[in-house]
């Protein structure tokens, strides 16, 4: 598995270097892979790249926690009460397709400038997929398992902990995966548009800055580093969790 994990990046690097050697694009726009690696190494060594990445990650986690709580709450209420289901379903239908960036001017107008703007945009991008997946996870629990719970006199707390939650887990986890991808998109684009407030900037700002200063290899390095994060998290975290859960449990919920 470790070898397969490296297969695609290796193929990509070869392809890139081939394109570079063919000199189809000017080297200023399309630098060699070595130059990119050298510059990325320098950015790693200076701490610039790491700091930017950690900063973006911090924003994502700051947004993940309230979104998970909010998503759970909304899903719980909508499963329990048809009245709140109508509200949350309408809200999700209206808000989910709306790109977070479209909220930028409104958020600035309402809440002023600050780092909280980026967090709010990321919350918007992950709250809805969280809610939708958690809700459908709860709603799709087979009646058979609930009947089995009733047969054995499970109380409300036990039914939630021992049946609903594990039964909905694959769907909830799929929501977290979607949320993770959406969060990166949102944080990178918000940082690029918004730039930096104060001294710190995230990975999006790093990439944008590199372009401004015509450090093309560093810019590519930032993008590749972002892709690498995605690949590593997918291979070494998400897939591991899925192997232990959804796939082992029958794979009906497995989604990529």
């Amino acid at each position, binding site marked *: 598995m470790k070898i397969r994990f490296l297969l695609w990046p290796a193929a990509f690097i070869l392809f890139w270097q081939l394109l570079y050697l063919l000199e189809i694009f000017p080297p200023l726009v399309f630098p060699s892979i070595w130059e990119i690696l050298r510059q990325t190494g320098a950015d790693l060594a200076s701490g610039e790249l790491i700091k930017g990445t950690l900063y973006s990650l911090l924003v994502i986690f700051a947004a993940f926690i309230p979104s998970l709580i909010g998503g759970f709450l909304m899903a719980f209420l909508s499963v329990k009460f048809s009245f709140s289901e109508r509200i949350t379903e309408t809200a999700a239908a209206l808000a989910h397709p709306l790109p977070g960036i479209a909220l930028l001017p409104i958020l600035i107008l309402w809440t002023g400038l600050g780092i909280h703007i980026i967090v709010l945009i990321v919350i918007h991008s992950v709250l809805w997929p969280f809610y939708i997946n958690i809700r459908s996870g709860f709603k799709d629990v087979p009646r058979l*398992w609930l009947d089995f719970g009733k047969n054995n006199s499970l109380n409300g707390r*036990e039914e939630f902990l021992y049946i609903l939650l*594990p039964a909905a887990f694959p769907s909830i986890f799929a929501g977290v995966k979607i949320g993770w991808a959406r969060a990166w998109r949102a944080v990178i684009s918000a940082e690029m548009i918004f730039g930096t407030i104060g001294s710190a900037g995230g990975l999006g700002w790093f990439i944008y800055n590199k372009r401004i200063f015509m450090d093309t290899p560093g810019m590519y390095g930032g993008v590749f580093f972002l892709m690498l994060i995605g690949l590593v998290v997918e291979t070494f975290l998400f897939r591991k969790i899925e192997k232990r859960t959804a796939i082992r449990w029958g*794979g009906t919920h497995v989604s990529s």
Partner: protein
Amino acid sequence: MSHLKVENLSFSYPVGDGRHIVLEKLDLSADKGDFISILGPSGCGKSTLLRLLSGFLRPEEGQVTLNGSILSSPFPEGQMIFQDTNQLLPWLSVENNILFPRFRSLLGSAEKKLSENDRLLLETIMDKTGLLSFRHHFSAQLSGGLKQRVSLARAIFAQPQILFLDEPFVSLDAPSRYELQNLLLNLWKKGGWTVFFVTHDISEALILSDKMLLFTGDGKGPLLITNFLESPRDPHSEQFRKEKLRLYSLIDSL
């Protein structure tokens, strides 16, 4: 001693403007250790009756009493086994599925906390149901027949007084079905539970049960018939065939 008693039980479903009557003023009593098949064509109300007996449905009129007290909800002393082979909890191993009804809050550490008696009971049941080598399997890795074995083991480990079985073997291939019928019979002989077994298969009812509740589609009350065939019952014997024909003609004439 009669311990499950049905008195004056009526039940109907709304259909369009009217109601489709499934049961009307049914009286029935089961003694401890009875094996009663509920037999009839599809859609006649067999499963509805089972859900009424097991407390999943409330009667419109009349009542079901267990050892003298009126049933109003499902109860762990009456374990239900469904037709659907997906009734096991897929996130739990075979062993933990079996432990769940009684030890759900201990799963993961249950092995350490089981009493000597319960551990012995678990091992015996897993052994008798042929599940010892599947202890750590998950239901997705099991065949339909094995899954129903686990369901059976799970119900038995819950130490029930009554087993409610809703066509549990209907989706299995013939050999597994035959195997599981025998397994159920042998376990029942030792366990002494009262069994209600829903089936639409006359042969299955004749092989398994001592009493049969014969349904027809016309909404009139089902007929209680005693099975006098001596066990072990051989489906190829002359007597068996005669009895089967008699039941067929009963269903037709009703």
